């Protein structure tokens, strides 16, 4: 096991609450080893995290108002993971994640209006209202979904990376240049699909990075109640010949620095990697979770270690941020999200014809084919779409 992480300035003391949640805390006490990160980048990440936080707060509100239906899982507390990880890879590197996906979508660059409208079930949504909260897709930003079945995205992640390598090496005859990021919850570690995907990735030298967002719980199950070797998840990776790392997911600068090195190595060696990303979700699992399985004291300890607050403190200490500039940033984020809610409210519901589109690329029977969502320009899908000659349409 390699620990790349480091204790940043302004970090609260590591407590036995941390030890209880993760089973070990060694990584949180490792000394800092970090190159200087330009202030402009730090400012951008601070704003990204604030945007996700504010967006999720408004989602919870909209859910209460019944504008959002179904399941809705907010990312509050984990913002540093999506923001730090996406910053550490290139835009052309594909990303795939689970159902707690709003943060990844925004960090990847999806316009929050399209994300919010999707949850409102409007035509302006990233999937024209057909996917919902758990299924955020953004082709232009190389986000290959939000996936609602625990673990389902893990073999897909291997496939994304496989395809990158195949295109570069088998089709173009060059050398692979991309890596795939596949996020999963700690609960997904217990799905067969994940283990099959890890074995395949190790076996086939697939440049995929599995980032376990270890928030200590899958719904109400504390990690050690559902997962063996919870205190040392990297041993699972070792079993597949894959390098494992433990990273402090509450520190965006550390996440970026560590993930950058991991991604660079993955790109260079074309070998998979596994990251035990220690984080915490501040809210319930979904909108209907009374959180009886953990104590208020525990939550307080982690909330005092808020990833936004931590970066704010770090940046103020280094002079990169002032009280005024931070307030101005908060204000602009609030305005942006308010505008995004209004935009989503104004977006029409999908027309009845949308029920039958996007079932097949090629039209047949009652299915007229497929169109792109507004965010991609609303153009018809896949040039050269053919029509299958069904002799008589009686379906």
């Amino acid at each position, binding site marked *: 096991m390699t620990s790349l992480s480091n204790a940043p300035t302004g970090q609260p003391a590591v407590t036995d609450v941390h030890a209880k949640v993760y089973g070990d805390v060694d990584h949180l006490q490792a000394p800092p080893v970090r190159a200087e990160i330009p202030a402009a980048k730090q400012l951008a990440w601070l704003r990204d995290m604030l945007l996700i936080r504010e967006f999720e707060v408004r989602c919870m509100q909209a859910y209460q108002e019944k504008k959002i239906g179904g399941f809705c899982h907010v990312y509050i507390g984990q913002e540093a993971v999506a923001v730090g990880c996406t910053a550490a890879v290139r835009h052309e590197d594909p990303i795939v994640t689970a159902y707690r996906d709003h943060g990844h979508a925004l960090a990847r660059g999806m316009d929050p209006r399209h994300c919010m409208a999707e949850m409102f079930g409007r035509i302006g949504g990233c999937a024209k209202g057909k996917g919902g909260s758990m299924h955020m897709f953004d082709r232009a930003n190389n986000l290959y979904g939000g996936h609602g079945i625990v673990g389902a995205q893990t073999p897909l992640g291997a496939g994304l990376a496989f395809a990158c390598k195949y*295109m570069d090496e088998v089709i173009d005859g060059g050398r692979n240049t991309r890596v795939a990021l596949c996020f999963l919850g700690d609960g997904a570690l217990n799905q067969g699909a994940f283990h099959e995907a890890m074995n395949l990735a190790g076996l086939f030298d697939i440049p995929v990075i599995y980032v376990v967002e270890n928030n200590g719980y899958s719904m109400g199950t504390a990690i050690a109640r559902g997962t063996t070797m919870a205190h040392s998840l990297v041993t699972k990776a070792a079993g597949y010949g894959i390098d494992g790392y433990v990273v402090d997911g509450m520190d965006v600068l550390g996440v970026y620095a560590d993930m950058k090195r991991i991604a660079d190595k993955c790109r260079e060696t074309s070998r998979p990697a596994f990251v035990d990303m220690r984080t915490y979700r501040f809210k319930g699992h979904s909108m209907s979770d009374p959180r009886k399985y953990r104590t208020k004291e525990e939550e307080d300890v982690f909330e005092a270690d808020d990833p936004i607050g931590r970066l704010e403190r770090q940046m103020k200490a280094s002079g990169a941020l002032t009280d005024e500039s931070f307030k101005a940033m908060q204000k602009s984020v609030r305005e942006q999200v308010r505008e995004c809610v209004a935009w989503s409210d104004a977006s029409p519901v999908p027309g009845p014809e949308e029920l039958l589109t996007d079932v*097949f690329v090629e039209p047949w029977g009652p299915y007229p084919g497929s169109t792109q969502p507004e965010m991609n320009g609303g153009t018809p899908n896949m040039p050269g779409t053919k029509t299958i000659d069904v002799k008589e*349409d*009686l379906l």
Partner: protein
Amino acid sequence: MTAVREIEFRDALREAMSEEMRRDKRVFLLGEEVAQYNGAYKVSRGMLDEFGPRRIIDTPISESGFAGLAIGAAMMGLKPVVEFMSWSFSLVAADPILNNAPKMLYMSGGQFGCPVVFRGNDGAGGQLGSTHSWCVEGLYSNVPGVKIAIPSNPYDAKGLLKSSIRGDDPVFFLESERMLGNKGHVPEEEYVIPFGQAKVLREGTDCTVASWGRPVHFCMDAAEELAKQGISCEVIDLRTVRPLDIGTVVRSVRKTSTCVVVDQSWSFGSPGSELASQVHRHCFDDLDNYVHRVHTADVPTPYATNLEQDYLPNARRIAEAIRSATYNL
């Protein structure tokens, strides 16, 4: 005079894959034993030699893993062909193949298609017992967003597999281990067969017999037998069940006024029940009798050979159904 070229069903499948792999580098094959072992049923024999291990890929016994991997690759624009040693083993990959592939385009609002072909052996008849004798079309045809081909002969197998690989949507391609050695005419020249086009195999005037896959042969046997007794059957091979070429069946039933549907999956909520229901709807005023259906018996697949033969929609049971439908009992 050029001799009519006859090849085995398995060779037709391999020709389809190899030809498509030659014309499109995005196409690759993966599955258990497909490469070094030359395929558990020798469908991919020789392909490793021609295309190498980057395109003919042996996988561990990880259906869920490699099915999902293929779907991820397809979302990126590659065109994987996944061989399931048996469709029975696809059940452990149910989530990727039913929950990801057919829904990706819809859930992404048209952003991500999933051009992947899953193929392998389907159906009973080999005394493999209940766990290994699935006719998955009974379950899987319920799911929108996927195309399903069930060819009955080498010619159709090759043409349909080629259009499956060229298409942009996920395809379940159901073969039968019992038919892989069957020989049939397959021309040298290139051809593809579009989905959703049934073929009338035998013209007749008294009863329309509609089927797909292996039972088509049993229908032809039954028609042959009944012809001797003066009952004229029109046998239709649907070739794909999604899309289902209802038009060809309806035109035939308007002529014959009776119809027997033969489907090797279980009867409850099956492609056969769907076809019968559609015929009832479109031919309500043309039918002289209700649409008869012949399925596998509504029990888990038995092992004993006699029981298994009775379980299948065999020629005897089909002939009985035709006699009943045409009031020739």
